[in-house]
């Protein structure tokens, strides 16, 4: 076995004075030192002192990401049972397993910010915290499995790649692993879609029908345009890009790839404007986004209730193993 003491620590030993906001100084001085470190591209670690605003913002951001990974498992896991070949079943099981693993990693990052995992589950299931819009919709056919893994994960990875440089160190490092796995999901999803598109007429129609349903939620996914100067998550460098920058990036990479397969994107206004260097598109239905993310989407209540029932049905297991053993084991 490797001697742990022989390894270099991942984090360099703290040089006294190098992280001066940790010193016992008046609040405003600490705040200023902390802020200038972050704005200069520095990383914050869990044992650092941090302003309440920063801790709360990182926690809210990571917790919603973790919730989304956990809830995002549900639409896809229904199809693990129905995967039509051994290879697809193995790939889909592994993919959903990755998402559960991401939820675990992210809840652990959030736990270190002070909120216990059970409290995060309580808030999610009580509707007090949110999860991403795309996981509030039903999966109706096998083609949805391709479209989700290819395009929903692609839209997500555009955002997630920008988080690898987050100012919060544990989140940035976790995102490196997550992005690597998500890029494998995209290949899996594209393979499912390409196989269907080179198959029978029924299979091709299945993909187009799925794309027609998912396009709206995909365009809403990154959220409405926002004012860069007012976005505190950008200020603290928790994230790096605005919602519109992410949507434009997604369109630039994926519109040609979607069209190349012979699919039709259900937006007649979609076009690249050479003059502005940006994509023009029909205004996404922001009312739908608000409705959906406040848990009034087509599957919101059903999925939350499924999780509540499942959590209640497995509570005895957690009681048994997380408490002290009753006799010497």
């Amino acid at each position, binding site marked *: 076995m490797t001697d742990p003491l022989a390894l270099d620590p991942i984090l360099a030993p703290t040089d006294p004075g190098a992280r001066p906001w940790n010193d016992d100084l008046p609040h405003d001085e600490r705040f200023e030192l902390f802020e200038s470190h972050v704005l200069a591209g520095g990383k914050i670690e869990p044992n650092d002192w941090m302003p309440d605003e920063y801790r709360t913002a990182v926690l809210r951001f990571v917790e919603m990401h973790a919730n989304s990974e956990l809830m995002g*498992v*549900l639409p896809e*896991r229904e*199809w*693990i*049972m*129905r*995967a*039509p*070949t*051994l*290879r*697809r*079943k*193995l790939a889909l*099981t*592994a993919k*959903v*397993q990755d*998402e*559960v*693993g991401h*939820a*675990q990693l992210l*809840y652990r990052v959030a736990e270190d910010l002070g909120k216990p995992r059970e409290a995060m589950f309580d808030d999610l299931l009580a509707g007090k915290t949110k999860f991403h819009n795309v996981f509030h919709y039903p999966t109706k056919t*096998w083609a949805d499995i391709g479209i989700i893994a290819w395009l929903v994960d692609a839209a997500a990875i555009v955002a997630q790649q920008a988080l690898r440089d987050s100012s919060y160190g544990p989140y940035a490092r976790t995102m490196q692993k997550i992005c690597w796995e998500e890029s494998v999901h995209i290949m899996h999803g594209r393979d499912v879609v390409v*196989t*269907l598109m*080179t*198959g*029978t007429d*029924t*299979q091709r129609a299945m993909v187009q029908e799925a794309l027609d349903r998912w396009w709206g939620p995909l365009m809403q996914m990154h959220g409405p345009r926002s004012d860069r100067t007012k976005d505190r998550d950008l200020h603290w460098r928790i994230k790096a890009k605005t919602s519109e920058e992410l949507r434009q990036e997604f369109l630039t990479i994926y519109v040609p790839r979607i069209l190349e397969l012979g699919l039709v994107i259900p937006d007649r206004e979609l076009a690249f404007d050479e003059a502005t260097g940006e994509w023009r598109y029909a205004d996404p239905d922001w009312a739908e986004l608000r409705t959906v993310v406040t848990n009034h989407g087509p599957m919101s209540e059903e999925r939350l209730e499924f999780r509540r029932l*499942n959590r209640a*049905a*497995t509570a*005895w*297991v*957690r*009681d*048994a*193993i*997380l*408490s002290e*053993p*009753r*006799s010497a*084991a």
Partner: protein
Amino acid sequence: MTPAVTFEPRVSAALADFLLSMADDEFVIGFSDSEWTGIAPILEEDVAMSSLAQDELGHARALYELLADLRADGHDADALAYDREPEAYRHARLLDHGRGDWATTIARRFLYDTADAARLASVGEGWPPLADLVAKIRREERYHVMHVTLWAERLANGGGEARSRFLDALEALAPDAGSVLASPDGESALIGAGILTRPMADAASAWRADVAAILGPLGITLNLANTEARPARAEHGEAFRWLWGEFTSVRRSEPGATW
């Protein structure tokens, strides 16, 4: 892979049946386990259970591929796994129950993994492709037994509800547990060809001793007498018919298509 040895017909037929029963066992338990993906009692265990399911499905695929090579009738592993009527599956009766609660899942895995270990230990060098595959499978199954034994201990020592649920599940499954090690048709031919090194009855005795050695210290005695009220590997019930309906649904929606 081509079978390196040519067997006389009665050995080939017995070998094909034996491969199909092992493959179907791994296929069906892999399905039951993958039903927990995303909803296991804790996230850490969720990830572990998905890995077990993938291992079992990987074993099933490798066994179906061997069978496809042996039969050489143009049916590939997917066709073997998916394109049969429910009555044609040959998994053991132990696996013919719905997923059930966590205690049922652990009890089923415990009884199956220990029995499967005894079966794998009975495979000889008579057909090298199978011997090689079994060596690989045993390396993985060793960890499955360690995992499920730990769970069995935690549930048995977990006090009131955990212990009583686990005991109930073991009692409910025990009458069917011996089905995994029921003697296959043509067993003597398989032993004669060196494909098996011992009768399954001997493997079953070793398995009962293994189970008693683990459960005994936990204060659990289980009657694993092999009652043959129903055939060990046929007449699958409603739970499997439902499962079959699910796992073939997409494939049946466009027969002959590539997925």
